[in-house]
């Protein structure tokens, strides 16, 4: 793995809702090396999208710093800021909202190419657009150039989104639930495409999803971070997190994934939660936020003390009092 590309240092983000303050993201620190895949997994409302948006520079942090190649993105100079702005791109969740409906695919992809001078002249731009469409498996590209977004399927639009992000040769792509709204049958081919970008172009990917099974598949070579109510519960190499989950929350999530073999699914031991309700972000439980639901609840320490994220076995960092 290369240099640290993105570093989060104690990043916190709060929102004011009806005169109350909620912590969407609470004290997250992590490092993503160049060309790495990191999957952020968690339930809705756990702050994974907020984290993604902060890394993308679309939201400011309330506290803490985000570094891009060692530079704080909030205080960068102009040239660095431009490098960062183009270096980190995002693929949105909703393929029906992420493409401008009045523009043809060619114009959508050609605009950033021309604006930033990546290509000179109409012919070169056209050639590059066709190349990019081929990269994202929209072939033959000429069939797509003159189409409007509404004439494409969800999966095809998502590919156009990726092609648009690739125009500026980013070093990091944030895929925020990028395959969640696409038909299940198309997900794998989209994931494979993301994987190819990583392998062939060395693009780092932050893959945000609520589906641990997807994370398991996609991040197999990379890392998985599990978030719960704004904090990282566990982060570590994907294979280790899946094989040896240490945080009780991760264990519960993994036990809930159905296996392809029905016999195994039936015999699989499911860990029961103490409570099914996700606490409101407005009234976060004291101590470890997971304690009201935690199957391994161990009394006072869980109720009173927020567990710090610390080194644990199997190369993971875990935030739990019970993991030594």
């Amino acid at each position, binding site marked *: 793995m290369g240099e640290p590309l993105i570093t989060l240092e104690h990043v916190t983000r709060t929102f004011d809702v009806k005169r109350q303050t909620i912590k969407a993201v609470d004290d997250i620190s992590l490092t993503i090396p160049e060309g790495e895949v990191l999957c952020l997994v968690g339930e809705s409302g756990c702050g994974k999208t907020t984290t993604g948006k902060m890394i993308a*520079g679309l939201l400011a942090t309330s506290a803490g710093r985000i570094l891009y190649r060692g530079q704080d993105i909030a205080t960068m100079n102009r040239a660095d800021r431009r490098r960062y702005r*183009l270096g980190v*791109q995002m693929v949105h*969740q909703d393929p029906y909202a992420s493409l401008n409906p009045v523009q043809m695919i060619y114009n959508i992809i050609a*605009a*950033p190419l021309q*604006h930033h001078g990546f290509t000179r002249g109409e012919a070169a731009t056209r050639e590059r657009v066709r190349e990019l469409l081929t990269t994202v498996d929209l072939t033959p590209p000429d069939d797509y150039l003159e189409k409007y977004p509404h004439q494409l399927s969800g999966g095809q639009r998502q590919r156009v989104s990726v092609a648009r992000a690739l125009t500026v040769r980013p070093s990091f792509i944030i895929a925020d639930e990028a395959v969640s709204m696409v038909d299940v049958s198309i997900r794998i081919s989209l994931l494979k495409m993301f994987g190819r970008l990583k392998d062939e172009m060395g693009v780092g990917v932050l893959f945000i999803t609520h589906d641990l099974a997807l994370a398991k598949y996609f991040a197999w070579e990379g890392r998985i971070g599990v978030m719960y109510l704004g904090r990282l519960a566990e982060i570590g190499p994907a294979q280790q997190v899946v094989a040896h989950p240490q945080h009780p929350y991760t264990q519960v999530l993994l036990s809930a994934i159905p296996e392809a073999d029905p016999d195994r699914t039936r015999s699989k031991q499911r860990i029961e939660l103490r409570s099914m309700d996700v606490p409101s972000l407005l009234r976060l439980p004291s101590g470890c936020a997971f304690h009201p639901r935690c199957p391994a609840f161990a009394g006072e320490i869980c109720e009173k003390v927020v567990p710090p994220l610390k080194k644990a076995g199997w190369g993971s960092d875990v935030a739990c009092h019970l993991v030594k």
Partner: protein
Amino acid sequence: MNALREALSGFWREAAKTLKILSHNKMGLFGFVMMILIILLSVLGPVIWPAETSANVSAINKGVSAQHWLGTDFQGQDNLRKIINGGKDIVTIALVTGILSMLIAVIVGSFSAFIGGWVDSLLMQFVDIWLTIPKFPLLAVLATVLALKDVVTLSVLMALLDWPGLARQVRSQVLSLKRLDYIEAATMLDLGTPKIIFRELLPNMMSFIAISTIFEMTHAIYQQTGLVFLGIVPYSSANWGVMISAAERRGVLFNPQAAWSILGPMGAIVLFQLALVSFARSLDEVFNPRLRTSV
């Protein structure tokens, strides 16, 4: 030079496409053709059939005849010829007021929505207060005080009075659009604020802008006609509003023979409005590729 030629050919391509889309929509095509005809007739008509300068005592308040298709007025002048000559003012007022007020509204509205913060609050506070003022009486008073002589000044005055309401609408449109993912994507691609506004935002609200412009045009025509009818704006030239006002003052209401002196200009206004509105209705299809049935 090359860029200019490219831009021109792009423009013609767009225009051709627009016409093709319009040709599939009967209402829209009718409106478009009618609008162009009225504008052409108002601009070129006076050259071919110049206004009559003297009264014709032998033919006062005559009904419809082969010689006078829409009869004659209280001075014995041909109504149809007068209508043709009186169109230029109305068309000028519609175009100048409609386009100018929308231009100010688009600039202020999108600026306000995009910048946000105290600039937005201040501008919108101003607009809110402005909206509580009854516009027509104010216009009447201002027009009297300023003693307006020509239509262009009147149009500009109307535009200045009317833009705040439109600006508020534009602002709310921009506010809802700017949250969309593709605007966010454009921000991330660092396309720059002008490009984002003109390439990503405005094209998505073009049908709204066009339709609001056209409604503003019809509104301006009514206002002008109203002002003339009340006698606030001097009869500097013979436009449709002046014709109605003059006909009413000369007691046309009591003379069925002369009905066309008042119905003629009224019909012209109605026809122009109808053309504008039906053209506006079809614009949705032009600007929104999803609604196109063909092409």
